[in-house]
């Protein structure tokens, strides 16, 4: 019998199926909520110059909201997508076909990353639209005020959105790894949120421990700092606020950093799932 090779087509179909289900489950409602939160915050805090919000505030609020809802989506979507297959036992029907378990996991991961990509693209469009509206409003209030309000580099906003997508992709891969060995969706959700907190704070902890006298404590801090991704590296709002585009070096480095973590966590998820009894 011929060897059954690994198929990118099957991974794409599993990802497509995952996306179609997410769309029909009305996950896009989260986009509407995010757009509402962005619009609402811009309307609420119109206390900047000329009665319109400052670009810096819009960027802070916009990326903060993107981060908040994106993190929820990056944790909830993989857990939901994975455990719904387990609980409905559709995973048995899929894997009873000549499908590698790795294809199943990579399809789920791929579908999740595309979903997060759509989410971030929509968030960036919302933020850019609000900034554009803000400039129009300032220009209408007083000639030359738009320039006073500070320059807005839309390319930096787009790059910032991409960086957020990379961060959420790493988080989704971590969550999928947890889901691949967790027995319940509740455990995977809680552990996913714990991972988010750890990844956000690990840099601070490691910095503190690196100052310790003990060689072992310093070494452990370095190891922990390498094993878990540092989400502090993805904070780009302050750079975007300067109006200067994000450097190609930073973007290349953070992309590589994210790819390594997504690759490692994705591979570990495949490993765990291969040994899971269904």
């Amino acid at each position, binding site marked *: *019998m*011929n060897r059954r090779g690994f198929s990118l087509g*099957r991974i794409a179909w599993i990802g497509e*199926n995952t996306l*179609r289900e997410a769309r*029909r489950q009305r996950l896009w409602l989260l986009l509407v909520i995010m757009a509402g939160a962005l619009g609402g915050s811009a309307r609420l805090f119109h206390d900047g110059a000329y009665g319109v919000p400052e670009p810096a505030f819009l960027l802070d609020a916009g990326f903060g909201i993107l981060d908040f809802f994106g993190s929820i989506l990056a944790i909830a979507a993989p857990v939901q997508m994975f455990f719904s297959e387990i609980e*409905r036992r*559709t995973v048995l029907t899929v894997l*009873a076909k*000549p499908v590698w378990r790795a294809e199943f996991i990579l399809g789920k991961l791929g579908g999740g990353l595309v979903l997060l990509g759509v989410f971030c693209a929509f968030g960036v469009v919302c933020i850019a639209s609000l900034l554009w509206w803000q400039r129009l409003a300032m220009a209408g209030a007083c000639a030359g005020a738009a320039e006073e309000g500070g320059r807005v580099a839309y390319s930096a906003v787009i790059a910032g959105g991409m960086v957020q997508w990379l961060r959420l992709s790493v988080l989704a891969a971590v969550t999928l790894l947890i889901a691949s060995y967790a027995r319940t969706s509740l455990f995977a959700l809680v552990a996913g949120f714990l991972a988010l907190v750890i990844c956000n704070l690990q840099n601070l902890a490691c910095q503190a421990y690196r100052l310790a006298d003990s060689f072992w404590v310093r070494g452990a801090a370095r190891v922990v700092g390498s094993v878990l991704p540092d989400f502090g590296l993805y904070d780009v709002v302050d750079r975007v606020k300067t109006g200067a585009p994000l450097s190609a070096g930073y973007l290349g480095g953070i992309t590589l950093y994210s790819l390594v973590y997504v690759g490692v966590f994705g591979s570990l998820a495949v490993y765990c799932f291969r040994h899971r009894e269904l």
Partner: protein
Amino acid sequence: MVAIEIEGLTKDFRSGAGDGRIRALDRISLRIEAGAVTALLGPNGSGKSTLLKIILGLLAPSAGDCRVFGVPSGRVESRVAVGYLPEAPDFYPHLTGFEVVRFFARMGGLPGAGLRERVGAAIAEVGLGAAAHRRIATYSQGMRQRLGLAQALVTDPWLLILDEPTSGIDPAGAAEFGGLIRRLKDRGRTVLLSSHQLDQVEEICDGAVLLDRGRVIETGRVDELARRGGGGLLGVESLPENAWDELRAWLGARGGVLHEGRAPRAGLRRVFLEAARDGGNREDCPR
């Protein structure tokens, strides 16, 4: 040709904390010939589903060997020619029946050319043509069962593994299912099904394997097992009305029972019940 070959198969599950283990399958050996329709029988917890999952490579055996068309069941290649219907199947509720079967057809490796027609034909074969473009959420349990059959059949597999295929299906649907299995047998397909519908098993299956507490306790041709269970049927025609009492008394004196009106399909049932007699003391297996 042998479709499924199992040798000394054992499966242990961990039971909670510590080193405790539950033996779900205990040194099972059996062969299922290609082209046969075989029933896997046994009380709940006897290990039927575990055995089916090992054949499908969904579970790894603790010991022993399982081959499907000569390929070890843990390998992806062993599932190329296999269709599977899980027990009480449930599918993506937000997708339509057509989308679900198309998805599984792609997973089964059907090429894009002619995919639409093949999916439509599989759905029509199980009588769901009119509901093909409705979402699964609106399907009854019986319709989901039929859809499960459609996705199992869509790649026209050489081996069909069906876990409780007629549960949730009405009698008319069950009769249609019997016809479908006979058509598959005529086309040379191998069918392995687990069922509690013993009357139907007697009608459509060539062979049966009885499991209890993870062990094979009976195996053989269904008609032979039924005869052993004492369910032989003797047709009587043109007997005068006054001779019935005489016949009943004659049979009674020899330990027989005269059933009037319908065929007493007790043969296989009796074998099954005798096998499961001690089931009350059985420790249930986890799967």
